[in-house]
């Protein structure tokens, strides 16, 4: 002390050591909790609490840079209303309970409902925020142990069209390329994707490339956004007409002789499918596509209807602009990356538009090599890792589909259950699952890590369904949400780094995180909640692991499903050590680009090998333009488009509890085009009433602020549970992927006068 006062401003080594050991920060790696980019974070932990975040410089995803959500992500663990105890609804009221009571009750209810109504009366609805062990245990419990295919996840409403796009064009899910394509491509075409806000770290990587070399960023959109402001060129089109634009680009490519003849002849076949395929707005809707062999000549003939001049009026895009786009794709000296997310996936022809963008890349041969990359982005941290790879969808198994006997045998063998236990027929996709709950075929639903009472389209119908008399809803979450409001049992969940787990991001990268913090109160990981209930149902032999080793053991068991060069995954020890590992992981090496022998050891022939399809060739699909399920008319003259903002992630149940993020964007609003606002006599900040055939809402107008819809369109972000925009949206979906279209329905707009 005396010494310190003699030399003011000097901290003596002794003090430093004390400071270091008492308050030292321990940095540990984890993927970010939020979007599908999968940035590597280093979380600073001190005295049992997360205190800081920085970007992980060792992560090839983000190379040390995060976005504002990532930097503040750990604050989402510490809001004062964190769920720390279970609740049970008694006499209509949610009352605190013990974990034992809650888990006993869930198991009891499941038993009686199965006994009285059959296996298909119980269901689980999970999410792309499930860790891989969560999804794996859910699938094993419901499909393997109980014997029902009532397993779905919110990724159905997020990227199912991306999956069916990949499967129909290439026979295997997930991108052929990776983020390294950003460093090689010369042109980036963003198909209805506001990347500056939704995938900011990857967008920054693109901007960085533009500072270093001559690259072009093209924003193809229905709304002017931050991405438009930063892009070299913005081309606005009318909703749904991306189908026609993609076909027109193909027309131009073929017509101008820009087609890569060798590539198409050797590596592609042309197919056609059914047309006039419907929208699924009615209960029990069924659809099955029938691919037919077609030819290049038929494709050429089909494309005659999509001459740029012919689609000008339909698309609202000038022939000149379409030709410009085609010239970028067609230029043999330019490497092109196409990027998309919800604009193309949440689309009543979502599978088709995915197919059509692949067509462009296939016709030009710009695929599976560095910088030539049609790249489907995702929105959730483990939509790929859990829902797509573990296969937590009604028709899926960890390897393959339930319809395939061989795949069922593999699953039964690894799970050690009789093969007859796994039903061969898919049951309900997400929208139909909520419909079945409404109709009463499903009595029990366990909802984990997702907030459907904010996100399901045509929400009023499905919220009423959950409240019906003999239904039983279990909700596992970390905070009270509109979904916990309708629960019969609420289970407090351990969040993110309060437990061990793995996520899988958009570029086939699996990322492990260890448990860094103690979960608060009685909060328990979703994996362990499922295991506890499984044991109460009598399946303890199928889930024999301990709390200490279960993640490692699950990973070992799950790895067996993916053995081989096409989908091999890294061993547990390797995952623990590295900032993410990409699959296929073959002989200790990651595969960055698939379907080309130079990069992919699974290829059996020299050069390209699209081994997902039996003939080793990719499919070019003939897919026409078809109108959306609901378009503006005299009564409902505006398009309603919904989406996200940079600051909030999904329903905001986490990000709104981070002061910095909430204070930046405190509530939802409706964006109007200035000319529409003027016509409606609305100025910025006025209250506006939106009404669709399904619901209505009053919220603040945003005119000439962050984004600007085209005339005749309004945009509302969906993060705010105070303004449930999904009460207005339509539950129409892509008949192939069953993914709803949140981007297009008809509303009327008026100034709200109180």
């Amino acid at each position, binding site marked *: 002390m005396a010494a310190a006062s003699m*030399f003011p401003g000097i*901290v003596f*080594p002794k003090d*430093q050591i004390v*400071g*270091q050991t008492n*308050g*030292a*920060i*321990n*940095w540990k*790696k984890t993927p970010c909790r939020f979007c599908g980019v999968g940035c590597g974070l*280093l979380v600073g932990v*001190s005295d049992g609490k997360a*205190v*800081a*975040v*920085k970007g992980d*410089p*060792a992560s090839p995803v983000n190379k*040390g*840079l*995060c*976005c504002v959500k990532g*930097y503040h992500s750990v*604050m989402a663990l*510490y*809001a*004062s*209303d*964190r769920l720390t105890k279970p609740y049970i609804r008694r006499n209509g009221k949610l009352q605190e309970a013990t974990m034992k009571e809650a888990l006993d009750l869930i198991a009891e209810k499941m038993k009686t409902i199965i006994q009285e109504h059959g296996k298909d009366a119980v269901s689980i609805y999970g999410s792309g925020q499930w860790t891989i062990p969560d999804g794996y245990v859910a699938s094993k419990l419901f499909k393997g142990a109980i014997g029902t295919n009532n397993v779905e996840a919110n990724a159905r409403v997020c990227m199912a069209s991306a999956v069916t796009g990949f499967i129909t064009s290439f026979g295997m899910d997930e991108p052929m390329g990776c983020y390294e394509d950003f460093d090689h491509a010369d042109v980036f075409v963003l198909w209805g994707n506001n990347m*500056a806000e939704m995938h*900011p*770290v990857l*967008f*920054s990587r693109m*901007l*960085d490339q533009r*500072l270093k070399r001559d690259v072009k960023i093209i924003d193809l959109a229905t709304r002017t956004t*931050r991405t438009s*402001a*930063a892009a070299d060129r913005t081309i606005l089109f009318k909703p749904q007409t991306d189908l026609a634009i993609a076909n027109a680009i193909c027309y131009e490519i073929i017509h101008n002789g820009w087609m890569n003849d060798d590539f198409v002849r050797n590596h592609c076949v042309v197919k056609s499918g059914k047309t006039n395929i419907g929208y699924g707005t009615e209960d029990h809707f069924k659809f099955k596509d029938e691919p037919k062999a077609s030819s290049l000549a038929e494709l050429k003939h089909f494309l005659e209807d999509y001459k740029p001049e012919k689609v000008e009026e339909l698309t609202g895009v000038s022939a000149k602009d379409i030709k410009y786009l085609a010239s970028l794709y067609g230029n043999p000296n330019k490497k092109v990356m196409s990027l998309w997310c919800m604009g193309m996936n949440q689309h009543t022809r979502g599978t088709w538009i995915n197919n059509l963008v692949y067509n462009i890349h296939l016709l030009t041969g710009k695929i599976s090599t560095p910088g030539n990359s049609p790249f489907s982005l995702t929105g959730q941290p483990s939509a790929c890792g859990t829902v797509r790879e573990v296969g937590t969808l009604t028709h899926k198994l960890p390897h393959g589909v339930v319809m395939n006997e061989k795949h069922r045998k593999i699953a039964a063998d690894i799970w050690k259950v009789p093969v007859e236990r796994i039903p061969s027929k898919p049951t309900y996709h997400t929208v139909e699952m909520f419909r079945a709950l409404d109709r009463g075929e499903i009595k029990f639903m366990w909802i984990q890590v997702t907030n459907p009472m904010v996100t399901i389209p045509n929400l009023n119908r499905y919220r009423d369904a959950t409240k019906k008399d003999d239904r039983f809803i279990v909700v596992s979450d970390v*905070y009270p949400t509109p979904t916990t409001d309708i629960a019969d049992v609420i289970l407090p969940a351990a969040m993110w780094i309060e437990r061990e787990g793995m996520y899988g991001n958009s570029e086939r990268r699996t990322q492990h995180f260890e448990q860094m913090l103690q979960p608060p109160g009685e909060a328990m990981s979703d994996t362990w909640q499922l295991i506890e209930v499984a044991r109460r149902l009598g399946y303890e032999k199928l889930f024999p692991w301990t709390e200490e080793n279960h993640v490692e053991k699950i990973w070992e068991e799950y790895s067996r499903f993916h053995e081989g060069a096409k989908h091999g995954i890294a061993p547990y020890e390797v995952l623990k050590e590295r900032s993410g590992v990409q699959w296929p992981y073959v002989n200790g090496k990651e595969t960055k680009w698939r379907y080309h022998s130079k990069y992919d050891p699974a290829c059996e022939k020299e050069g390209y090998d699209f081994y997902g399809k039996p003939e080793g060739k990719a499919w070019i699909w003939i897919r026409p333009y078809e109108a959306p399920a609901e378009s503006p008319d005299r009564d409902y003259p505006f398009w309603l488009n919904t989406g996200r903002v*940079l*600051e909030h992630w999904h329903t*905001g149940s986490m990000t709104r*509890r*981070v*002061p*910095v*993020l*909430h*204070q*930046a*964007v*405190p509530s939802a609003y409706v964006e109007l085009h200035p000319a529409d606002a003027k016509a409606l006599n609305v100025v910025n900040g006025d209250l506006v009433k939106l009404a669709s055939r399904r619901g209505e809402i009053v919220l603040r107008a945003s005119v*000439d*602020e*962050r984004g*600007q819809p085209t005339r005749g369109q309004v945009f509302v972000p969906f993060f705010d549970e105070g303004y449930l925009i999904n009460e207005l949206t339509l539950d129409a979906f892509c008949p192939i992927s069953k993914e709803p279209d949140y981007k297009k329905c008809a509303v009327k707009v008026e100034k709200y006068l109180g």
Partner: protein
Amino acid sequence: MKSRLVLIGMCALLMFGAIYIIGTSLYEERKAAAPATVATNPVSSIPIERGVFARSAEALLYQEMPESQKGLEAYYQNRAYPGAPPIIPHQLISEKGIGGKNCLQCHQNGGYVEQFSAFAPITPHPDLLNCMQCHVPQKTNLAFQATNWEKMAAADIHQVAMPGAPPVIPHDLDMRNNCLSCHAGPSAPKEIRVSHPERVNCRQCHLPRTTPDIFTKPVQENATFKRPGGDEMGYSEQKLDNAEVSQISEWIKNENQ
């Protein structure tokens, strides 16, 4: 009757106010007393050097410039934790776009901004153009839900190994490689404004701490090797078992007595 009620009400309000103020000030005091934490990083990585020498051309000018009245307290006030990206404490020029030029016109080179009567802080990473990706404005002071987040204390400044030694860099360098942008010029917080900006090569003397460990090398028991012909010189490799070791120490003890 009414006025008495109002009076009682006002007294009650005053009382609650006093309790609140005393309570928070006690809490603040406790927080301030907490030991300062030092950021350390066991994931061993040497900070990248990007942008280290940016702004060095202006270094001489800095000495002529007025000193900031802003202190470190204000600096940390608009950060969720030391090292977090600062929020935007002022109104935006435009809600549109990613930031970019709009932000850089003031924050690339700094200078006096009349609108805010302040010197604009300078960004250490002007090459990252999507500013709004990390920096967001505040549209409200309210919270959606109260938070139990505890903001850690910033590292002590002027940490030196011995009197007269150059202070170490007590913070991480991620996104903050260019020292002069925060430590020089009129917008630099007064406590950390460097007295010698013209020396430019800051990291020649001031080093970041990338590990809490210190380097030591104990003599390795297994670092044995045989010299050629060692046996002849009597250094034959021989392992003693435990019994022999205790026998030897017994002898030594006896010798010493």
